C-alpha cells in the first residue's frame, strides 16, 4: 500500500500541532490539516493556561502570545461574602491570545518538518478492511486523498473525524458544559483569574473574569448542558446585574464553545489506525473546563506513539493502545478524581456553597484542586454536623 505520509493529523490546534511536532521530531513524514484559514480563530475559550505546564510540555511561549500574566486565582461564593485568593505556583500562568499562541505551535510543528495544510478541511476518513488508512481533505479547494498508516483525530469539541471513523465521541448533554464569553474593555482587572460560583448565575458551571490587560477581560459563563435556556442568557443577566463594574464595559469579541467535562477517553479513543486526542477525546479538566494544556499533553503522547508505530509498521489498535496506557498513567487518575469533585459540587445549592466557602481558606482550595480531599473534609466536620444534607454529597470525597 502506498502511503503519502507516516502520520496524518486532523486539526491543528494545540493538540494537533503538538502531535505533528512530536511525530516530525521522531523522524516521521507528517501532515497536519486544519479547516481554518487562520489558526486559533474563532477563539472558543477563556484562553487561560498554567505556567507549570510550559516546562512539563517543553514549550516556550512568545511574548506576543501573552495577553496578561496571571499571579493567582480568586474564588467567590454565591453571596459574594467570601472570597478566597490563592497565589501559588499552580495558579501562576497566562491569559494568552489564542490566535497567536495556536499559530506559534503550528510554526514549531512546521519547523520540525511537518507539512501544515490550512484552509484544508478533513471531510472524511479513508477506511480499508476495517482500518483507517488516511483522510479526504479539501486542499486548494479540491477534494483530495492522503494516505497514512495512522491518523490522529485532534479536531476539538466537534470531534467529527473520530466519529467518521466509527469511534463514538458524541458529547452527552449531562457531561458537557457550554460556554459564552465576551472580551470586554473598560473592566478593571487585577492579575487574578476570577471565578464566581453560583447555581443561580451559572448552573453546574461558573462565571469567570480572565484579565487580558489592565482594563480588558474575557468575561464568560459556562453552564451544564441540561440547564436552560442558554449560556448567553446567564452571561447577559450577570453583566447587567453588576453595573458597578460593567456599566461602561464594551464588548469587542464574542467567543463560545463546547466543554466536555465528563471522563477522558482512553482505550475507547484508539481504533485501527486512529488515535483520538485532546478535547475531541474529552480530555478536559472536569472542574474548571480548561483544555488547552491537557490537549497539548495528549497530542504529544499521541504523536510519539503514532510515530513509533508508523516506523515499525504496527498501526493496529493493539499497538496504538500504548497511547491509552501512557495516558492512564500520567493523567487519567487525576482527571477522574476531579470528576468526582465535580459531581459533588454540582449537587450543592447556593446555600451549601456559601456555608462551605465560609470554612475554606486558600490552603483548603489548594488541597481540593490537588484532590487531597480528606484534609478538607476533616476540617469541615463542624459544618457537616450543622448541615446533615451536605454529608451525603461530601462523603463521596472521603
Amino acid at each position, binding site marked *: 500500500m502506498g502511503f503519502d505520509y507516516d502520520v496524518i493529523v486532523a486539526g491543528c490546534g494545540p493538540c494537533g500541532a503538538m502531535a505533528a511536532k512530536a511525530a516530525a521530531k521522531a523522524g516521521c513524514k507528517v501532515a497536519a490539516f486544519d479547516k481554518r484559514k487562520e489558526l486559533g480563530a474563532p477563539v472558543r475559550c477563556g484562553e487561560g493556561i498554567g505556567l507549570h505546564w510550559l516546562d512539563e510540555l517543553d514549550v516556550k511561549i512568545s511574548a506576543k502570545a501573552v495577553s496578561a500574566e496571571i499571579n493567582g486565582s480568586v474564588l467567590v461564593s454565591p453571596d459574594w461574602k467570601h472570597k478566597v485568593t490563592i497565589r501559588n505556583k499552580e495558579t501562576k500562568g497566562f491569559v494568552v491570545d489564542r490566535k497567536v499562541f495556536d499559530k506559534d505551535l503550528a510554526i514549531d510543528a512546521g519547523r520540525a518538518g511537518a507539512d501544515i495544510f490550512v484552509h484544508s478541511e478533513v471531510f472524511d476518513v479513508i477506511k480499508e478492511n476495517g482500518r483507517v488508512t488516511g483522510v479526504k481533505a479539501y486542499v486548494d479547494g479540491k477534494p483530495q486523498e492522503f494516505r497514512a498508516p495512522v491518523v490522529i483525530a485532534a479536531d476539538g469539541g*466537534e470531534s467529527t473525524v473520530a466519529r467518521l471513523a466509527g469511534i463514538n465521541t458524541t458529547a452527552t*448533554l449531562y457531561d458537557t458544559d457550554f460556554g459564552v464569553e465576551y472580551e470586554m474593555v473598560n473592566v478593571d482587572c487585577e492579575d487574578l483569574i476570577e471565578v464566581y460560583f453560583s447555581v443561580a448565575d451559572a448552573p453546574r458551571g461558573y462565571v469567570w473574569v480572565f484579565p487580558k490587560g489592565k482594563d480588558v477581560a474575557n468575561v464568560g459563563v459556562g453552564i451544564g448542558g441540561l440547564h436552560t435556556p442558554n449560556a448567553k442568557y446567564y452571561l447577559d443577566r450577570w453583566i447587567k446585574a453588576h453595573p458597578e463594574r460593567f456599566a461602561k464595559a464594551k464588548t469587542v469579541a464574542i467567543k463560545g464553545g*463546547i466543554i466536555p467535562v465528563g471522563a477522558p477517553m482512553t482505550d475507547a479513543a484508539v481504533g485501527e489506525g486512529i488515535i483520538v486526542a485532546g478535547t475531541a477525546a474529552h480530555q478536559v479538566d472536569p472542574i474548571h473546563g480548561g483544555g488547552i494544556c491537557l490537549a497539548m499533553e495528549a497530542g504529544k503522547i499521541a504523536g510519539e506513539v503514532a510515530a513509533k508505530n508508523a516506523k515499525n509498521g504496527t498501526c493496529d489498535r493493539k499497538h496504538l493502545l500504548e497511547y491509552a496506557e501512557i495516558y492512564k498513567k500520567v493523567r487519567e487518575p487525576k482527571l477522574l478524581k476531579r470528576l468526582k469533585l465535580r459531581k459533588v459540587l454540582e449537587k450543592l445549592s447556593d446555600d451549601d456553597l456559601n456555608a462551605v466557602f465560609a470554612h475554606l481558606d486558600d490552603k483548603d482550595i489548594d488541597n481540593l484542586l490537588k484532590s487531597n480531599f480528606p484534609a478538607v473534609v476533616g476540617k469541615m466536620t463542624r459544618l457537616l454536623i450543622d448541615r446533615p444534607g451536605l454529608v451525603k454529597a461530601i462523603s463521596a470525597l472521603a
Partner: protein
Amino acid sequence: MIEINRQLCIYCNSCTGVCPALANRLREIKIEHDPEKCIDCGACVKACPMGAITLHKGKKKL
C-alpha cells in the same frame, strides 16, 4: 429539523459536538445542517450557548 439563526451563530461548534447523527458540520465559518440526517433529538438546541437554534418538528425541508 432545526433552524439556525445565522445572525446569532458564533460558529462555536457546540451543536456539532452533541449531534449524534453528525448532521451539523462546521464548514470554515458556517455551520452546515443536513436535514436528511437530523433525527430531531434537540441536543444541539440545548447545547447552543447563544440560543441560536430552534427545533422544527417533522423532517420537511423549509
